[in-house]
């Protein structure tokens, strides 16, 4: 077996050192009834690299990759071009096969990277501080709601109807068991957000208001007034960003007064990966830092006075505080955070702004072309690189017909809100820099044909 270096001679010599007669002697504490003598029945034996690659390659070819043709899906996961150097660098063994940096003297590479990542995320989201990452955007969103409860000592969270339905489902699942009260609902097909109505609902029991920016239908709005309303009522404004590239072009939530900003960082460096692993972004104002979940990296000095970095403020965390920790989270999404950080470094401020502008321009082009199809209109008053099309018919069957024509034409609201027939004509379309003008033309022609 190519990954197991011990030889039978080694094993015999080691058993002799231990004073055991056979390997079974080392498993004596396992009750006989639970001990298996041979390999588990009905499972195949070991296989060569060639055979495994052949098997997995055959499975991989049974899916239609996004890059194989026109592709317009978003709704929380976006396809951007990732520079070749990102994947090369994250595969350096010293990053790939390192552990959590608990021994900082020999983990400065990971720690400095995390410090840079935290700094980049805080600046992008417009906040003071960011942590070293969470599992993904949806779990970061729930953690933000719990954090707001801890800070305000109130339990009612108002969720915008524009919040990603999966994020809302995660919060609902958890709230069922924690006693938190969620006020939420499905979006309505309107050009603008529900934020003004949300502001009217904030009261003395409200711990936080959660808005997504851009929201699930692609709408963008100014949250300044909502932030002021929240803060006047002693509640926190939590902003969720699922497409961080947007922040190269539009104001950050922090700039507009959000107290906690969480997000999904997958857009930068990580790729689609069928939903995971992704990288949750978590940022807030400095005054709330001791209520944050997750790992934090901080600057310090070593015994010789040299600058160095360590994991810090760990008295918030489960390995120190156990049941009194701010969260049960242990791992962060280290390697994905690295990919995000490298991609962001390659872009730099100028590159990010240009990338964002190209995305927006391409989306405007697509929106105009698709809206010229008879019976089709664009819902949004404004958008970044994603918008909602209203079709004259249910979007879900249309998506399947488009797929037969090798066009992956977006995410139907029927898929996201299966119980809400009022939304079934909605189709969420994302257009990034990876989409060509020819792709847009092909999509428009196919949609026209399907709807005819």
């Amino acid at each position, binding site marked *: 077996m190519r990954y197991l270096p011990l030889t039978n001679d080694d094993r015999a010599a080691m058993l002799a050192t*231990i004073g055991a007669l056979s390997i079974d002697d080392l498993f004596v504490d396992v009750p006989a009834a639970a001990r298996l003598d041979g390999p*588990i029945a009905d499972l195949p034996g070991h296989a060569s690299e060639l055979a*495994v690659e052949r098997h997995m390659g055959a499975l991989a070819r049974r899916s239609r990759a*996004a890059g194989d043709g026109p592709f317009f899906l978003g709704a929380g996961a976006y396809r951007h071009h990732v520079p070749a150097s990102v994947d090369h660098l994250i595969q350096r063994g010293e990053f790939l096969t390192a552990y959590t940096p608990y021994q900082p003297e020999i983990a400065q590479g990971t720690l400095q990277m995390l410090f840079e990542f935290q700094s980049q995320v805080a600046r992008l989201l417009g906040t003071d501080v960011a942590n070293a990452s969470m599992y993904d955007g*949806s779990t970061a969103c729930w953690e933000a709601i719990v954090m707001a409860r801890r800070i305000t000592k109130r339990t009612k969270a108002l969720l915008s109807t524009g919040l990603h339905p999966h994020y809302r489902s995660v919060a609902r699942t958890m709230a069922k068991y924690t006693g938190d009260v969620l006020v939420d609902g499905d979006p309505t097909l309107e050009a603008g957000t529900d934020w003004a109505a949300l502001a009217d609902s904030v009261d003395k029991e409200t711990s936080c208001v959660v808005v997504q920016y851009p929201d699930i239908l692609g709408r963008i709005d100014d949250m300044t007034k909502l932030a002021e309303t929240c803060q006047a009522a002693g509640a926190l404004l939590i902003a969720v960003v699922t497409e961080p590239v947007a922040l190269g072009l539009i104001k950050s939530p922090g700039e507009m007064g959000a107290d906690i900003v969480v997000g999904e960082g997958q857009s930068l460096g990580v790729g689609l990966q069928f939903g995971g692993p992704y990288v949750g972004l978590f940022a807030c104002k400095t005054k709330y830092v001791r209520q944050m979940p997750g790992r934090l990296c901080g600057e310090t000095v070593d015994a010789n006075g040299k600058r160095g970095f360590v994991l810090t403020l760990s008295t918030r965390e489960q390995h120190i505080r156990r049941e009194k920790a701010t969260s049960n*989270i242990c791992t962060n999404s280290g390697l994905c955070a690295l990919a995000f950080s490298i991609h962001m470094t390659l*872009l730099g401020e*100028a*590159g990010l702004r240009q990338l964002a502008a190209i995305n927006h321009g391409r989306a405007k082009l697509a929106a105009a072309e698709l809206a010229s199809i008879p019976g089709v209109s664009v819902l949004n008053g*404004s958008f970044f690189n994603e918008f909602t099309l209203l079709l004259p018919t249910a979007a879900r069957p249309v998506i399947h017909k488009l797929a037969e024509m090798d066009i992956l034409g977006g995410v139907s609201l029927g898929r996201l809100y299966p119980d809400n027939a009022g939304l079934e004509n909605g189709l969420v379309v994302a257009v990034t820099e990876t989409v060509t003008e020819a792709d847009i033309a092909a999509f428009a022609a196919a949609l026209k044909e399907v709807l005819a």
Partner: protein
Amino acid sequence: MTALNRAGWRPEMNVAGGADDTTTFTGNRALMLEEALIFEIGGSETTGVDFDEAAPAADLGALARTAPIGLPGLSESETVRHYTRLSRQNYAIDLGLFPLGSCTMKHNPRLNEKVARMPGFADVHPLQPQETVQGAYAVIHELAEWLITLTGMHSVAMSPKAGAHGELCGILCIKAALEARGEDRRVILVPESAHGTNPATAAFAGFTVEDIPATEEGRVDLVALKARLGPDVAGVMITNPNTCGLFERDMKAISDAVHAAGGYVYCDGANFNAIVGRVRPGDLGVDAMHINLHKTFSTPHGGGGPGSGPVVLSEALAPFAPLPFVTKQGEVFRLIEEESAGEDHPQTFGRMTAFHGQMGMFTRALTYILSHGADGLKQVAEDAVLNANYVLRSLADVLDAPFAASGPCMHEALFSDKGLAEGFSTLDIAKGLIDEGYHPMTVYFPLVVHGAMLVEPTETESKAALDQFIGALRSIAMRAKNGDPALKAAPHFAPRARLDETLAARKPVLAWEG
């Protein structure tokens, strides 16, 4: 570089107590290279990405971003150099033995990386029409079947994103099952030796946590546990093999007692590597157990994640498993989401995460499993246990091994700081190992042993590698017993000396403020 690396090494700085007193202009030491922050070397106009078109004009009114963001950019050449230099300040499995107990730092096969990057896995969107992602569903389903078979359990929830998230999944299944029975049990029992995530998870889900006492030989005290069981106890969370490196001999009896009292058994599967292919948790009465794919099934740890924590479930808890999940109907794979759950899975506790879990980890874990096969996986457990016992018995004469008398260990060897010279501690041994070219073992965990040192060599180490490690640790243990003052200042040869963690926590600097 001096000006850039303001707080770094400077030529005028006399490195007292270091390996030697020579200094350089750059602060570098030949191949040991200092590296400034991107904020010190990058610029707002510099970029490593070219676009084919100019930025089109946007009309976003008041929402348009006008103020500078403050993000530095580097050219590609600078970027590659920056991160390559940073990487060289890390220890990693690729460099040597990484004996971090309970973390299972085994070799990460590169075939797994290659497979995970196949476009049919890496470049597919989680919300694509189901007919276009059959291959991706097939991977999830095939891995699920392996996990069910290897653990002897009824079913598996694949979506949890990491070990602690898997714990949450199991605990929520227990909550939902109790709710379905109409019972309000509020207490989860957790042994003191448990990972911190266990009590944190139970509390996060709204349970009260109480300790289970341990016996002197480092196992759960069955008599005390039985005495505590009752109508308020929802369940227990037990790690098996436990964090003292011992198999819980009474596991079946524990399960039977908990079940008889109306509770459920959660098993922390962090240490599954010791028993994979040799013992099925399903035969021990477990109701739920997470499997850290990044431990037992070798998906890379990546400097702290991503993890992946599928949870295998008993028949009693399976109806409550989270959404979504993949089923196979004939030759077609189907994703069961919210809309179809009503008919197929009405008792689900809901969704834990957006999308379907850590696909990139599933492809790697399945590749690893197929490479080993049933025979190879059994060998994994045997060699992991053999290597740990070899370390335990080879060092028991110089380091106190508190539970060595109670029999063989499983995949990790536990030592304490008993017998070290006055003023010397586990931390000194750990830092001494760094100078010898090793990552230290897990230290000060589990909490039940004073100055704990938990060594998990894993099965991917050769006998020669183990012999050298044993020699190094023996040498350091002798130095700690003899009170060698040089050990107190270790590490001497690492990129940094001991770092001031108190300062970091007292005056937190968590982001670049330049």
